[in-house]
């Protein structure tokens, strides 16, 4: 950028450089995985927005990604709600991952999707839980937008786990999670499909212990 341009940007409050906006402030919640933090705008999970986690099958590593966040939330005595989990969250494994299971509450899975959406919205608006995770497949964009507003209003992060990617999803972050098998090294391959505040989308390999 030449000097006169720089002068212009500095003196005029109505002008700014696009780079600065894209870099954003590091106001995300650290994911606990350094390589994932590096590719997310804000350096972590968005604080008060909907994250869509897309995996071909349940159990591909998506829960593994959430473990550090769950750990830090329950350590801060904040509640985590699991809406319609596809299987039983297995307490011994969660305890071994250092998560305080006293602060977990599952809702469903035998509830109608209307009730599930109502639950998510109410929980997000109430500002009373630290994290909300939901396993729902059929979500129109309008609904996601509504949840996005609720998450914003309630200042609560919401993670939606889905098997298929929706087109033009209004979620703040869309992450494709795949299992990567390199010999004995187990890992997760995460690819950003969409992220608010970023203009280039990257992918990362996240090693998984165990």
């Amino acid at each position, binding site marked *: 950028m030449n000097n006169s341009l720089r002068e212009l940007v500095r003196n005029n409050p109505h002008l700014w450089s696009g780079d600065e906006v894209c870099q954003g402030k590091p106001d995300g919640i650290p994911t606990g995985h350094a390589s994932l933090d590096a590719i997310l705008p804000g350096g972590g999970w968005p604080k008060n927005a909907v994250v869509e986690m897309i995996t*071909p*099958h*349940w*159990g*591909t*590593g*998506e*829960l*593994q990604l959430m*473990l550090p966040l769950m750990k830090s939330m329950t350590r*801060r*005595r*904040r*509640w985590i709600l699991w809406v319609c*989990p*596809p*299987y*039983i*969250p*297995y*307490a*011994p*494994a*969660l*305890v*071994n*991952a250092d998560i305080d*299971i*006293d602060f*977990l*509450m*599952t*809702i*469903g899975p*035998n*509830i109608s999707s209307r*009730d599930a959406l*109502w*639950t998510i919205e*109410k*929980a997000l608006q*109430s*500002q*009373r*839980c630290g994290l909300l995770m939901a396993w729902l497949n059929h979500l129109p964009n309008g609904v996601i937008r509504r949840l996005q507003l609720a998450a914003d209003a309630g200042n609560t992060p919401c993670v939606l786990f889905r098997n298929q990617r929706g087109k033009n999803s209004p979620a703040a972050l869309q992450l494709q999670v795949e*299992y990567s*098998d390199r010999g*004995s090294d*187990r890992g997760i391959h995460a690819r950003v499909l969409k992220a608010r505040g970023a203009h280039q989308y990257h992918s990362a390999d996240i090693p998984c212990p*165990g």
Partner: protein
Amino acid sequence: MPRPLPALSFRDSLLYREEEACNKTETSTGQQALWLAVCLPKLALEVVAADQPDEISVVVEEIKGRKLVHTASCSAERMGISAGMTLNAASTCCPGLKVYRINEIAREKRLDALAAWALQFSPMVSLHPPCSFLLEAGGSINYFGGLTAIRDTIARELTERWKHVFCQATTPTPTASLMLAQAGRNLVVERGADLRSVLGPLSIEVLSLDDKRKQQLNKTGVRILRDLWRLPSGGLARRFGTDLVTHLDQALGKLPDPLNAYRIPPRFSDTREFSFDIDEQQSLLPVVHELVTGLCDFLQQQDLYTMDYQVHFYHRQDPVTMLHIGLRQPIRQPGYLMMLAETKLSRTKPAAAVVRVMLTAERFYSVAPRTRYLLPGSDLEREDQDISPLLEQLSTRLGAAALKSITTHADHRPEYACRAGAPAGAGPAPPDNRRPLWLLPKPRELLNKDGGIYYRSRIHSLMGPERIVTGWWDNHGIQRDYYVGTDGIAGHVWIYHDLTTRQKWYLHGLFG
């Protein structure tokens, strides 16, 4: 999950709030305090066999598997049946004996009702279960025109209205009155100085001692209270406990005797009538709101909390629609109670047009205030948010069964090591072995073809086996070899080989 607060029964809560020392020797009107004790020796029988006064009947209670006579009717007593007899012995005395089982709840309720009734004679009424109550009559003498008038009114009403056999005694101390009434003495002692001579001939049974001390006293030749008074009180306290001496001194008025005052349990009920029919749910909301606000005012005034309330919608013909709103912990915040009512109302449609709405609440709790953190605005205080209002709202709509917390449980069988439901405190630490984050509710059988195990594709073993053979004692025994495997597509899986007769492979968990 927050631990629910211990629910105090209403009377318990009063105990510590209103422990009043009521041993004024003078009442507010300047009259000497006189305690009127009423003992209903046949109460247990009268509540189960009303309207049959001449029946030969007994109430039995079961103690250690033996059926013993608790109370015998007057006509049964004439046949030689007495309390404490075995039922067999009693039946031998009188073959046509009518036997009732003891009903402690009915007895307690009747005593409560009698106490409420007795409040018309005195503001200070005290219950002494199982079958006595006390009231302070000294302050009411002028109003009723003499102690005799009070005693006569009580006697008349107890006989005619309540149909109880009773005994009433009036003395300057509550303990002495109770002792005399329980011993069956119908008398009035107005001067404290006379108490010793009146109580002297009573049997030591009136002290309600345990069997061991009763036998000890019997062995030393003590039969009546006068014998006790002849003994030096220091030695008596050493041998039989200070409570015995205290009790005796209380009877003579030498020591104060604090009592618990009976209060009528609060009840809230409020109604709104309409001059027209309302059939729109939206129009009902303001009415319900008004009623809930009334309830909250009531709770505030009484310093109480509620855990459930009912809203009844009356229709012209159809039966009443009732909404029962239950809470997870005692609450009195109006906005909160209203939100629950709204949620419930949006799910339940009154059957027809509504002409009347009534709100009732009967069970109340008094609650100790929440612990505050020492440092204001500390991290803990800010972040330890109470999630119960949210859970309350969710369970009102979804049903309490939809909400589950998860806990660990000490069992080597994987399916029993994790439990859903209300938390029972911190669970045991799980084994250090690698466990999956997801457990399948029911193990899924895997395809076993050409020596390979297939889930989505062929599974390779990574770790294992971990043999789990346990549970033989409750018919849900397992014999399994667990492996951690991978199918190359979906991540790590937890599979097992059933070592029992079936010899099959199952998928039991996903490492997520």
